[in-house]
């Protein structure tokens, strides 16, 4: 099952977006963002139950101090990104377009850190201690889904996990945050991988990187053996970084439909999360900042920033020098799976991997032409579905046909909509079908 390091691995289907925009920011080292006078930290930054706030208006907090406490198993702690005064809980526009509660902090400008946790000598530590630390630090999946890491690393005992895969594919066009992280802090990523392996009791650890990040592969490769991590080079193909496709490419195993990676004996973790694991375990600091790519053709100085959570998007754009032309679309995340925003006041959260501004000329992508049954979406679909048929079924509001044709297995990667010559909003159709089918099941 293990492949030689230079074999380029991949999966069935997928697309090769042309002009992936990574060159805009891939050469720019990670910069530390200047301190702002105000942060709005969204309370719900994880999948599952939002944490319970433990601070009151008027409280003074220090950097790394707990703001909200995990409420239940699938939940995550939230810490203050800086020192200052709590103003209160305010409504901010969330990344999904609705107003969401956030804790507003007025920074005192000192950025004074609270006492950090003691480092853990992880090589001999009890996995349970490591897990607890990861939970305390409020780690969530930083690739996009924001699933609490502690939960991910506590698989039910009947699932035998034998492989840990670090996702460094970063297949989304434009995004370079993971790339820079791997290039600049390879030891952090590798150490995080090893710690994660220790937590899971797994020694078979891969880190999958697309071949277009040659320098990162080199950087990781120099130290990989120290940490017992194998590097899998992956073909540049979208969605290489999707869990199921990544597992397929590296191990050749297929995650059963409707299943999770652990059903194939794997756990997949983003490289950013791995670095955060190292921070939590070795440095004893919680997750309060992350590397985010601020990019786009209209951004003056595209680059990668270490942003504190709660930074408004507009400030991040200002760090990058503002815009050179009027943007037509603001996207949080990558262009393939990110979410279009209707406000520049959205705060950065633990899973904001990118802030992308598209020019007006590229903002309108969808048309109203019907399907011409060219079948390209069938070739592109990494899940082997029939997107055109599903789209037609949804347009005719025949959701039972969509359900029969496995719309629930769609991973919404957008490959079908990318290749569609009729420019149909297929992902929107899929989401609607899923929403309607879920509603019906209730």
């Amino acid at each position, binding site marked *: 099952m293990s492949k030689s390091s230079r074999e380029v691995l991949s999966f069935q289907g997928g697309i090769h977006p042309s002009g992936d925009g990574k060159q805009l920011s891939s050469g720019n080292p990670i910069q530390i963002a200047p301190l702002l006078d105000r942060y709005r930290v969204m309370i719900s930054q994880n999948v599952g139950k939002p944490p319970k706030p433990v601070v009151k208006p008027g409280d003074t907090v220090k950097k790394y101090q707990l703001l909200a406490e995990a409420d239940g198993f699938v939940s995550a702690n939230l810490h203050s990104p800086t020192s200052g005064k709590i103003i209160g809980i305010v409504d901010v526009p969330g990344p999904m377009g609705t107003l969401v509660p956030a804790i507003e902090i007025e920074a005192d400008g000192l950025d004074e850190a609270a006492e950090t946790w003691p480092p853990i000598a992880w090589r001999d530590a009890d996995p349970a201690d490591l897990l607890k630390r990861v939970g305390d630090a409020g780690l969530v999946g930083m690739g996009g889904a924001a699933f609490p890491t502690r939960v991910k690393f506590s698989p039910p005992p009947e699932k035998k996990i034998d492989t840990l895969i670090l996702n460094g594919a970063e297949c989304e066009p434009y995004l370079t945050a993971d790339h820079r992280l791997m290039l600049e802090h390879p030891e952090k990523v590798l150490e995080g991988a090893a710690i994660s392996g220790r937590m899971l009791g797994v020694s078979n650890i891969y880190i999958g990187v697309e071949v277009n990040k040659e320098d990162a592969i080199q950087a990781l490769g120099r130290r990989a053996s120290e940490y017992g991590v194998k590097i899998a080079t992956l073909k540049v193909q979208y969605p290489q970084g999707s869990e199921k496709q990544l597992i397929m490419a590296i191990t050749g195993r297929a995650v059963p439909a409707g299943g999770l990676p652990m059903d194939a004996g794997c756990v997949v973790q983003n490289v950013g999360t791995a670095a955060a694991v190292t921070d939590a375990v070795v440095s004893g600091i919680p997750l309060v900042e992350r590397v985010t790519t601020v990019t786009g053709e209209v951004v003056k100085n595209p680059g990668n920033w270490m942003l504190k959570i709660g930074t408004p998007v507009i400030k991040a754009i200002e760090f990058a020098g503002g815009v050179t032309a009027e943007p037509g679309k603001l996207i949080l995340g990558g262009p393939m799976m990110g979410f*279009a925003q209707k406000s520049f006041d959205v705060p950065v959260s633990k899973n904001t991997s990118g802030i992308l501004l598209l020019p007006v000329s590229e903002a309108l992508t969808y048309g109203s032409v019907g399907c011409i049954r060219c079948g390209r979406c069938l070739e592109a679909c990494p899940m082997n579905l029939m997107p055109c048929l599903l789209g037609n079924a949804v347009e005719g509001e025949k959701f039972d046909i969509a359900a029969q044709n496995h719309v629930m297995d769609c991973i919404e990667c957008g490959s079908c909509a990318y290749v569609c010559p009729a420019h149909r909003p297929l992902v929107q159709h899929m989401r609607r079908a899923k929403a309607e089918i879920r509603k019906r099941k209730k």
Partner: protein
Amino acid sequence: METILFAILLMAVIGLVLGLVIGWFAKIFQIESDSRVELVTELLPGANCGGCGKAGCSDFAKSVVSGENPPSKCPVSSKEQVTAIALALGIDAGESFQQRAVVCCGGDREQTKRLLNYNGVVDCVSASLVAGGPKGCSYGCLGMGTCARKCPFGAIEIINNLAVVHRELCVGCGTCVAACPRGVIKLVPADAEVHVYCNSPAKGPAKRQVCNVPCLGCRKCARAFPNKFKVDGFKAQVNYEAKPLPTADDVQAVGCPTGCLLTADEHLKIEQNEPEWSPEK
């Protein structure tokens, strides 16, 4: 003569044989059917709207015959129709409770801020999945007509980007309530005339920013008629259990500052005739 004899004989024999075979088959494949189910099905409206909670009219008929549901559970049938079913089965008609749908939003094209550049499917469910929908208010009617398309009775019309219920056509089956991704549509007693045309639980100033006709939660109505209106957070609601229900005169007396408290007829008239209506004018 002979020919006729043979002809009669032949027909008779074949008829007899076929008759015997059919009779024999009928015995083997006998099934018990309840003719009452068919009778009730015929008396039902046949719209298969699912308002009763069953899969369709024949399914409902079965449940009526078996005594699981009273005939009045059908929201679509008029009182006379329900009585007819009850008479046919010789059972009690059950308490009739007629409902009507009302779209609790007055935010039409002119009143509520819309986001100009929505690029996608014209359907409320689809649109609500993109950044919460292309409307400034994330609780109001999206006006893309999913409810109007689904209504089996054609009772909902989209006017000025706002769904409006024609009360004379609505039977209260609740199909639209299930279809609406925003939960703007509510089922109310059929004789309720006055409604609060706002669905947003957000704070007053936030609503003001995006809409000209929100309920600001000023409590004016609740102060004037404490038993007829109640204020829940930042949104007033009609107390539909009040007897008597509020009337057009009450609306006059309250003098709602934003004009989101209206009678259904008035609301329909505003949307049909005065697209640029606002309370100030």
